[in-house]
Structures are given as structure tokens and as C-alpha cells.
């Protein structure tokens, strides 16, 4: 049993790959290797996305490199597809490890027609009905109170699911975070709150975010347990999350787990982190790579695949992604016709009218485009100037 409110993050594997503590590590080799593969997959996904971003196939990307220990440890501690998840935007590693097909995640990133969310949101706004992953809002901490409400519903309906809600360190400053955690606590709602503390909210370090010693200590304010775990140690994360999830499942109300980690890349493809943190600091955390740590442990245990095996593993992941991208590159974005779907359960008159006006416009544009392609003289960026004087309205 891990203790709450520890001063230092709970660890199971040292930087050198040695097991810490007396307790044996309960996970079987297959499970450890699965986690290893999931971490690699998350890492290589980042690598690939940075590439396709450069190619203009997606518009925006936020790496989770460095945070795989946290996300994959969590994924392996809950009942994927059964427990519900309200993730946040940096959770691509979590998504993949929960079993959301890479194809679906990529279609969302690329804004394609086959995205189950109809390409309505920016990259990183995960959603998967089949995997019980609830569509992300961009508004930081926006998912916290809904997660509380969902768990209240689960309790009311007598379901044995729990609700998992993730967020960054920055998110804990929002009023909605407070409102959500408190609501869950007061109602004894079964939420596993997970803070992926990567020590930055864009450029803002922890010291401009909070004065308390760590995020988990905030549990005191809500009368709920707070666990503090080393997010670079996937085994510790998995074990602590599992314990916390079990506590939550047992009906004791919400639990807060903070995993201390670091994002190695910039906040997003629109960021330049050299403005606000030193290269030395980044290097320090590169040296704390969660994948390397697990490799060292696996090596000691004699279950790490050899260089060729590891090579093959990576190659497998890379070609999986290649193949998916190959298919997705043939797809296009959604039709303008989908613009007015899903605003409501029905299509009220004002939206019918707006649909019709858009239809007139788009058909005219399509005609103009056809003309242009047929070799008619070039039009300026305002495609439909030919309508001037024709009075189509």
C-alpha cells in the first residue's frame, strides 16, 4: 500500500534500473513488455507527427515525449474501454495505450472526413465513443466538473465503472478545477483525478502556478487522498494508479494522483521554449527518460529484447503508422454539407435557412471552380466575381 501525501515522489525503479523497496514488482513480463511497446509507440507517434506537421498534413502538434511513463502507466492501471476517460489534449500516448486505433487518432489530427468527430476540432481533441473517451474541450480544466458529474451518474445508476480525468499542472489553477474536484469529493463520486505535472503551463513554471509544495497536497483542501508518484517510472505509476483506481472503485470517493514528469519538446509546434527554460534543464530531464529507465530495468531482469528485437519493434510501429498515413493521405476533409449537423438534435428553421444560403454560395463556387479548371481566365481570390451584375440574388 502506497502512502498518501508523501514529500517525495513514489518510485519503484531507480534511474539505474534497479528496483527500489523491498516489495517485488508484481507485473508479469508480458505486461511489462506491453507497457514498453506502448511507450515506444507513443514516442514514435510524436516523431511521426512532427514530421507530417512539417509536411503540412496537420496544423498543430504538442508532443508528449518524456511523459510516456505517466500516460502508459495510467492506461495499464484502469479498465480500458470500461472505465470512462475525460482526457486532456496532450494525451496521445494515453489514447493509443487505451486501444484507440492509431488510425482514428490520426484522422482527428489530420481533420479528415472519417474522423468520428467530423473534423470539427483542432488536432489533439480526442474522442472515441467505443473506448469511452469523451470528446475534449480546449478550455483548460473544463473536463473536471463533468467528470465529477459522470461519476455521480455512475453511482446513481449503480454501474461499476469509474471515471478517469486527466489534466496538466497549469489546469489546477483554474476555478473550474476546484469546482470539479470539490463536487466529486462532496458527492463521494468515483473519479480518479490524474495530474500530469510536466512542470510547465506553456512558459509558466510551477512557481508562477502554485505556492504549495506539490499538486497532490491539494487533496487536503478537498478531504481526499493525494498520491505523489514519479512520472518517469512507469512501474511506479502503474502500481500507484492501480491502487488509487481500486480505492476509487471501492466507493471511497475521488482520489488525486500527481505524476511528476517533464515535457521534453516545446509546448506545441507554435512554441519556442528557449525563451523560458535553459538547455541544461531540458538535458537533465532527457537523462530521466522513462523509456530508458524501463529498458534498464528490463535488462536487469533479463527480459529486454536484444538490439535487433528492439529495432524490429520500432520498425513495426513505424510501418504501422506509415501504412495508416498512406491510406489517410487519400482522404479529404469533410464536406461543407456537414456544417449544420449536430448543432442540435434537430435542424431549426434558422439553421435550415443558413444551410440553404451556404448551399447557394458553395454551388456557385463549385461552378466557378469548374469554369476555372476548364481553362476560363483566372479569377482573383474572390472566386465568384463573375456574379457581379448578374444578380443571382
Amino acid at each position, binding site marked *: 500500500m502506497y502512502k498518501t501525501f508523501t514529500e517525495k515522489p513514489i518510485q519503484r525503479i531507480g534511474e539505474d534500473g534497479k528496483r527500489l523497496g523491498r516489495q517485488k514488482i508484481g507485473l508479469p513480463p508480458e505486461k511489462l513488455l506491453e507497457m514498453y511497446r506502448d511507450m515506444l509507440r507513443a514516442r514514435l507517434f510524436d516523431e511521426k507527427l512532427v514530421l507530417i506537421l512539417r509536411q503540412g498534413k496537420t496544423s498543430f502538434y504538442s508532443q508528449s515525449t518524456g511523459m510516456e511513463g505517466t500516460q502508459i502507466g495510467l492506461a495499464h492501471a484502469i479498465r480500458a474501454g470500461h472505465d*470512462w476517460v*475525460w482526457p486532456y489534449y496532450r494525451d496521445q500516448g494515453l489514447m493509443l495505450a487505451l486501444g484507440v486505433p492509431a488510425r482514428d487518432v490520426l484522422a482527428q489530427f489530420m481533420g479528415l472526413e472519417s*474522423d*468520428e*468527430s*467530423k473534423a*470539427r*476540432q483542432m488536432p489533439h*481533441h480526442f*474522442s472515441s*465513443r467505443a473506448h469511452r473517451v*469523451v*470528446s475534449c*474541450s*480546449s*478550455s483548460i480544466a*473544463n473536463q*473536471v*466538473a*463533468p*467528470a*465529477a*458529474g*459522470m*461519476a*455521480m*451518474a*455512475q453511482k*446513481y*445508476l449503480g454501474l461499476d465503472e469509474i*471515471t478517469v480525468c486527466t489534466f496538466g499542472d497549469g489546469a489546477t489553477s483554474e*476555478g*473550474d478545477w*476546484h*469546482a*470539479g474536484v*470539490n*463536487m466529486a469529493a*462532496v458527492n463521494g463520486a468515483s473519479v480518479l483525478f490524474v495530474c500530469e505535472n510536466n512542470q510547465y503551463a506553456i512558459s509558466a513554471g510551477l512557481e508562477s502556478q502554485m505556492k504549495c509544495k506539490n499538486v497532490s497536497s491539494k487533496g487536503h483542501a478537498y478531504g481526499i487522498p493525494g498520491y505523489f508518484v514519479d512520472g518517469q517510472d512507469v512501474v511506479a505509476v502503474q502500481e500507484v494508479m492501480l491502487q488509487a483506481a481500486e480505492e476509487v472503485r471501492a466507493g471511497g470517493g475521488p482520489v488525486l494522483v500527481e505524476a511528476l514528469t517533464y515535457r521534453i519538446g516545446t509546448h506545441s509546434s507554435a512554441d519556442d521554449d528557449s525563451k523560458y527554460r535553459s538547455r541544461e534543464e531540458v538535458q537533465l530531464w532527457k537523462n530521466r527518460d522513462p523509456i530508458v529507465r524501463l529498458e534498464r530495468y528490463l535488462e536487469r531482469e533479463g527480459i529486454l529484447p536484444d538490439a535487433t528485437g528492439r529495432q524490429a519493434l520500432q520498425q513495426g510501429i513505424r510501418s504501422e503508422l506509415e501504412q495508416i498515413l498512406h491510406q489517410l493521405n487519400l482522404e479529404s476533409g469533410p464536406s461543407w454539407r456537414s456544417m449544420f*449537423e*449536430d*448543432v*442540435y*438534435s434537430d435542424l*431549426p*428553421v*434558422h439553421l435550415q435557412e443558413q444551410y440553404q444560403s451556404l448551399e447557394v454560395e458553395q454551388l456557385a463556387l463549385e461552378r466557378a471552380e469548374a469554369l476555372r479548371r476548364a481553362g476560363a481566365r483566372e479569377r482573383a481570390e474572390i472566386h465568384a466575381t463573375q456574379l457581379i451584375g448578374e444578380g443571382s440574388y
Partner: protein
Amino acid sequence: MELNLISAINLALREEMRRDERVLLFGEDVGARGGVFLATEGLQAEFGKARVFDTPLSEASILGAAVGMAVRGLRPVAEIQFSDYIFPGIDQLFSQAAKIRYRSGGNYTAPMVVRTPSGGGVRGGHHHSQSPESLFTHTPGLKVVMPSTAYDAKGLLKEAIRLDDPVIFFEPKRIYRSFKDEVPETDYTIAFGKATLRLEGSDLSIIGYGGVMPDCVKVGQLLAEQGIMADVLDLRTLVPWDLEGVLFSAAKTGRVLLVSEAPQTANFMSSVAYRIQEELFSQLLAPVLQVAGFDTPYPYALDKTYLPGGNRILQAALRVLHY
């Protein structure tokens, strides 16, 4: 049976909770206290604390939790004690409730109702008098209702609870108990998007919703005494609103007065005015006029002076008639 507006709301809640176990009711003081206006009186006693309960004092907690419950299949009915107090939790409505269906491509929905007493005339000062409905009509994804009779309150609230969309249900608190009207004990609902005529005429259209309706009717009656016959139309729902009904009346009379008590600038009714003049430009006999609240915070001592009452509506009606 004859009921006042707030009793009709209580009845609608009771009937829906009996009908459907997924309907839950929560907010500040809605439990043992029965709500500060007593809209939920007796409901905790009948349905128990698992279905009717008090929340922490946080509108973000209330509205956010409602979203999560709705996503998991419940039919939450959340009360915000005064519509002025939606603001601390408004991001849950704007960024979650309003958008979750759209942003998930229809995979997730938030069928929930937010009931909230609204409007002026109760000496409530800045924070117990405002009429923020326009903000919600400007937020795609939300449906917006404001009844003005007990009959409509019951039918619209039951419809709201059954709809698969998030509905903001504004209750005109100043007429909660000011009159009674006939409310069938049977189960009925009123479809959104259909206005209803309170008086019929062909000289002028007076169009309003919510708390201003009794005064609109009074003015219509007063005019009728002078032989001027007005259509008095109650919109009942703002999103969607009854474009067809409004245009029918406006085309018939050629003279339109729009009445609401929210501040004038960017008032929802301006977009109704816009659509009328857009569609009926050559048929109007006078500009569309609006009576609305002043563009000041809602004052306490001058409550009655701020609020557009019968006199102000009447004067504006005369202006439209004599244009």
C-alpha cells in the same frame, strides 16, 4: 386546475420525475429548502436525496456536473438560483454543454435543463434582476426558453426535459405568483419554436416573451378599448424562435413593436427586428420598434423606473402606430 407559474413548474418537475427515473434535480438549496422561490418544494421528500440534492455553492460545479451526468445517460435538471449567477459557471455551458454534440460529431450529447429565475421587478438590484438570455441565444448549441404563463411553463419544461439538447429555461420570477391560469393535469408538452397569440388584431404586432407579457397584454387591451386591435404575440422560445409566426403577424399589421427587458445593445430582439425588416421591407408601414432595458446596470431603488412597464410599452406602441 388553476395554478400560478411557479406551481406549474413544480408540477412539471414532479410529473417528469415520476415518469423517468433518469431525471435528477440539483442546485443550491433545492433540497430540504425547496429552492429559494420554492419551485422544488416537496420534491426531495417525494423522490429522496439521491434524486433531489443540494450542491456546493458553485455554479461551475452544478453546470459541469450536469454535463457529465447527461453524457452518461441521465436527464439532469440543474437550478441556478438567479440567472445573474450563471456567470461563474458559464464556461461549462458555452464550452461544454453547447458544443459537445457538435465537437464529437454527434457521438456525445448533453441533454440537460438549466432552470433559472430571471428578470427584474423584484427590487433585486444588480444581481437579482438581470435578463441575460441574449447571451445564450448568441451561443449556438443551446436552446433558450422563457414562458409567461403557467400552462406554457408546464408544457415547455416537460418538453425541455425530454429534448436531447441542452436547454436554458429562464423563469420570469416577477410573475411567479402574480396570476393563475388553467393547467391541465394531463401530460402535455409544447413544441419549441411556436409562438402563441395572446390577443389578435390587425393594426399592430406587439411581440414579447417572459416577464413583459402581462404588460404587453394590458397595453393590447387598452388599445382595444380605443378601437386599435393588436396582435400580441408571445415568443415562448427564443432558440429556436418562430420566424414564420412573427413574419405572418408582421406582414398582416405592417407595424411591429418588440418588447423585452434586457439592455438594448445586442439584445436578442434586435435580431428579430433585423429579420423582420429583411423579409418584409416593402410591407412595413413603420420601422420596427423595440422597447428594452436601458444600457445601464440594473439599479435597486429605481427598479420600477428601469423596468419597461405598461406605460413605456404603450408609448412605444403609439409611436409605431402614428409613424
